[in-house]
Structure formats: C-alpha cells, structure tokens
C-alpha cells in the first residue's frame, strides 16, 4: 500500500451517466426499425408467395447453382494463386522489361471490368476458333465454364500478385539484411523469413479477394454458365417471381458471411503469436 493511498481514501466510482434519449439513440432505433421492417417485408414476401410447386421445381436447380459457383470460385482462386506467384516476382523484379510486362498485365486486368474481360475471352476466343482448333485447344474454349474459370483466374491473379508483392515489400529491409548477415541464401531467406511474414500482412486482403471473387462470379451467368446467378435468372425468366432473387441474395450473403467468419478464425489463429495477452 502506497503512502498516497493511505492518505487519500478511495472515492466511490462516479454515478453512471444517466442514459438520455439522444439524437444518436433515436436515429439508431429508427434505422433498426427500418431494417426490421425490411426483414419483415421480405419474410412476408417469401411466406405469402410460398409456392410449393415452384420450390420443388427451382430450388434444386438453384442449389445446384451454388455448387457450380463454389467450383468456379475455388478453381479460379487456386489457379489464380499459382499464376500470381510469377506475376508478383515480375512486379518485384529489378529487370525493367519484366517489370513493365507484369505491370501491364496487372494494370489491364485490374483496370477493366470483369464483365468486359469475360466477353473478350468467351466471344473473342469464339472468333478465332480456327486457330484454337489447330493448336488443339478448342475443347477447352468451347465450354463456357472453362472460359469463365480462365478469365476469373487471370483476373484474380493480377489482384493476388499485387497483394503478394505489396506484402513482400512491407517486410522491413532489416529482415533481409539480418538474413544476409547470417549468410542465408536468397531462396531460403525468401521462403523461411520473408514470405511467412508477408503472408500475415496479406491475410486480410486475401480474404477480401476471395469475397470479391464469390461476388464477381455472378458474371459467369451472362455467358450461359448456370451458376447460382445463372440458375436464378433462369428461374426468374420462367416465373417472373422476384422471390428467386431473394433466395439468391440469402445464399450469396450466407456464403460470404461464412467465409468471413472462417477467415477471421483463421487470422486469429495464425497471428496468435503476435497478440498481446495482458
């Protein structure tokens, strides 16, 4: 017990501030009321518009669409990740020619709409069918799903390369120098020292990129791929019932939210050695 504490008796905590119905509280309640209203309206729409026959006919198709969406996104992300490594290396390269080429690649795919890229690959490839037949690749481009995967993979590779390159740049130079002074070879330095640190910085942007890919994949529906959006559009074109778009909205939100939660857990686990426990 310190002397000060002995002389100055502990005073009771101040009385809790009286909760007032301030502007913020009113606005908050108003907004929540609005959301509740919207939720009830949607629920009502789904209940009032309940049509057993429609659900039996289109729900299986829509769930099948979810599967296609997951395949599309999964494949694109994995292929894109593989592609992003050489692109990131190019972006970090000291060679100006390699730097320029990879910059142009990345700028093109990040600066143009995914929809336009998809059209370019799908219908553009169709225009050069003779050429693709000759080199024996037409079987690949013939299928709309493959074209979508190719476009999305090229697109996400550009974004992932930027994330990776940015994360590697963010690792302090001291780490390189320390490794060098320990006489570690460059490859080992990169693989054991730099990349593990960079990946932690990159974790959050990677998660965002996965979410963006799930959302962006809806574009595949425009080139006849029957993903979640494609099946939804199909069902809408048959029923003119807006409900089906609400189903799709719920399914997309569920996918994105589950991913976000999983990613948060993952991030917390991977960075647990960085968290301070006091």
């Amino acid at each position: 017990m310190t002397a000060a504490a002995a002389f100055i008796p502990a005073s009771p905590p101040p009385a809790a501030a009286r909760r007032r119905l301030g502007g913020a509280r009113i606005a908050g309640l108003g907004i929540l009321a609005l959301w509740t209203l919207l939720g009830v309206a949607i629920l009502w729409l789904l209940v009032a518009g309940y049509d057993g026959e429609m659900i039996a006919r289109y729900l299986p198709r829509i769930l099948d669409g979810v599967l296609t969406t997951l395949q599309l996104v999964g494949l694109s992300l994995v292929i894109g990740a593989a592609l992003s490594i050489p692109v990131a290396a190019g972006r970090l390269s000291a060679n100006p020619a390699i730097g320029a080429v990879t910059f142009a690649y990345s700028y093109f795919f990040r600066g143009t709409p995914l929809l336009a890229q998809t059209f370019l690959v799908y219908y553009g490839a169709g225009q050069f069918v003779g050429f693709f037949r000759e080199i024996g690749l037409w079987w690949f481009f013939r299928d709309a799903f493959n074209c979508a995967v190719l476009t999305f993979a090229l697109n996400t590779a550009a974004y992932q390369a930027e994330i990776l390159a940015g994360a590697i740049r963010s690792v302090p130079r001291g780490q390189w120098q320390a490794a060098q002074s320990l006489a570690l070879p460059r490859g080992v330095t990169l693989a054991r020292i730099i990349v593990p640190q960079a990946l932690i910085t990159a974790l959050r942007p990677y998660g965002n990129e996965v979410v963006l890919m799930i959302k962006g994949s809806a574009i595949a529906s425009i080139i006849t791929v029957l993903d979640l959006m494609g099946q939804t559009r199909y069902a809408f074109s048959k029923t003119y019932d807006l409900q089906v778009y609400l189903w799709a909205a719920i399914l997309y939100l569920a996918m994105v939210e589950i991913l976000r939660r999983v990613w948060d857990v993952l991030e917390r686990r991977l960075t647990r050695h960085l968290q301070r426990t006091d």
Partner: protein
Amino acid sequence: MNEALSLLSFGPTGWGDEIASGVWVTVSLAASTLPFGLALGFLVALAKTSEDAYLRAGANIYTTLFRGLPELLTLFLIYYGGQIALSAFTQRLFGQPTEVNGFVAGLFALSLVFSSYASEVFLSAFRGIPAGQYEGAQALGLNRIKTMRLVILPQLVRLALPGLSNLWLILLKDTALVSVIGLSDILRNTNVAVGNTKEPFLFFFVACMIYLVLSMVSSIAFGFISGWAERGQETRA
C-alpha cells in the same frame, strides 16, 4: 486494319459514335453516383463511430448487406424489385405507375454498393485522427459541428483520399454491369456492335481499352487532388 478503322469510325456505318455515346453514359453514371455514394458513406461511417450501440448495429447491417451481395444481384433487385414497389406506390397515389429507368436503378444500386465500401474507408480515416485533435478543438471551445467542419474533415479528406480513389476506379468498372439491364453504356453498345459485325474480339478489346483510359485519366486527376489535399503537409516536413 483499315476494316477495323472503318468499323470504329463515326457516322452511319461505323460504331465510333455509338461507343462514344456509351462512354458518356458510363462517365455520367459514375459521376452522378459519386456524390450520393460519398454522402451516404460518410453518414454510415459517422453512425459506425457513434457511441450508440443501436446506431452502430444499424450501420453494420447496411455494410454487411451491400458488401456481401454481388453487385449484379443488387442491381437486379433494385431494377426489378424497386420498379415493382415504386410502381405499386405511385399507382396508389397518383393512379399511374412511374418508370424506374436503367440509369436511376444503376445510380441507386451503385450508390448503395459504393457507400458501404466508402463507409469503411471513412471509418479507418476517422480512426487515423488522434483523439488530441478532438480535445484540442474542444479546448478552443468549438462546438461539434464546427469541430467536424474545421478540424476533422480537412484531415479526413487527406486520409480517406487513397481509399476513395480506389473506390472510384472500382465504381467506373462496376458501371459495366448496367449493360445487362439494357442501359446503353460502353459495354452495351459494344455488344450491339458485336451482334451486327461479328467482330467480338476487336470491339470488346476496344471497350477494355476505353475503361483503361478512363481509369488512367482518373488516376491523373486524383494525383492533382491529393496534391491539393496534402498542401498543408509540405511545410511540416
């Protein structure tokens, strides 16, 4: 090559003038979305920094919703759903339905998406402003509105600018989605041209190049704006 040029020429046989009018639609759609998106995003960010839990929850639902839905789906929901709801409303009120055209639907949907992302940018900018700034303003006797206007906003603009310029580039690209609901933007008009000429590669490539030019021009413009926003910083160094 000559053939390609004649296809892209202006006039009755070329598609240059259609594509140019598409550029105008794209740019005006993005430009008119911007003020709504910024204002809405700022308000949502304010709500998120509020001390009131209800207000924060309300704002969080907003961003979860519009950052989680595919932009294409948001657009369809607004375009078809908004049309049905609004028509039913005005039918009852005035005895006549109103039309939600593609432009308005696009403006609305893109504003929702833009503002939910912008709110995150503003939020982290708010967090980048030290509490001392608020305390200093309070010590000077500034009220809350004056604090915001004179002390916080000028710093907020500088902190939020990189994030916002990124969002603007995303917005420019997202406008391409309105081509799906039939608004004659760059992509829709190139699509019509492709249908007529059977030259998909040429036209879609040109469309991509136009988007690239638009984003380059935007980047240059943002360079100037950020120079202006940083004008107070140089003297300090």
